[in-house]
């Protein structure tokens, strides 16, 4: 029964994928490849980089929070009035790669969050730490 509310506020999708993590990493981090499975974007695998994901229904405001090539990628995900954190984790297996996506830390968007995000974005890291602390 523990973490009922935390679980209700997070989304986890994981899958075994029969390809090496290096190849999946490219699909997760190269803009022309991201566009093919997710949305149009101006992504760069650089911590602090702000980018958008664009679809015909609107725009997702993102900022890169953590990059560990072939292992972990994390970025904030702001859509409409809701802000969350997306974390991708790649783990090599005998068959290929275990790919895990967790979207959590949902909270109402606050304008000052974006204003404060331009510099060293300590608030974003504090938020990320909070999210990580909740993962059992």
């Amino acid at each position, binding site marked *: 029964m523990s973490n009922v509310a935390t679980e209700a506020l997070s989304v986890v999708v994981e899958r075994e994928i029969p390809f090496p993590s290096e190849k999946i990493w490219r699909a997760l981090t190269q803009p022309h490849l991201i566009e093919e499975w*997710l949305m149009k974007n101006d992504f760069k695998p650089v911590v602090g980089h702000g980018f958008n994901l664009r679809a015909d229904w609107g725009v997702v405001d993102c900022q890169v929070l953590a990059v560990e090539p072939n292992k972990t990628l994390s970025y904030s995900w702001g859509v409409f009035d809701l802000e969350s954190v997306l974390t991708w984790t790649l783990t090599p297996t005998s068959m290929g790669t275990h790919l895990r996506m967790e979207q959590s830390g949902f909270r109402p968007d606050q304008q000052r969050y974006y204003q404060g995000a331009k510099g060293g974005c300590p608030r974003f890291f504090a938020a990320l730490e909070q999210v990580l602390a909740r993962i059992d």
Partner: protein
Amino acid sequence: MATNSQRVIDLKMPKAHDVLFRTLADPTRRAIFERLCRDGDQTVGALTARAGVSQPAVSKHLAVLKQAGLVRDRHEGRQTHYSAQLSALAPLIDWTSQMAGFWQSRFDHLEDLLKRMDQ
């Protein structure tokens, strides 16, 4: 396969769930709620002993939780017992499963792309 315009439903937190979400976004409040889920009915005093915040603060969190329908109170003599209302979480669980559906379909697209990519 759903189009992007249909996907807007998946990505947007419905207005009706806003209160629920805002209520549980606070870590202290969520901890109080989870304690009630785990340990059953409790008084403010018992909750305060383990919450790490003052009794007035706990009472305030409980009032917000009650307003969101997440807890119910029951008076017994001079004591008030609080209990979690798990059914109130249902809209959030529905919403997160919709989000999971969105990501499942993106995972499908990603796998298709990986098959097309050169090594």
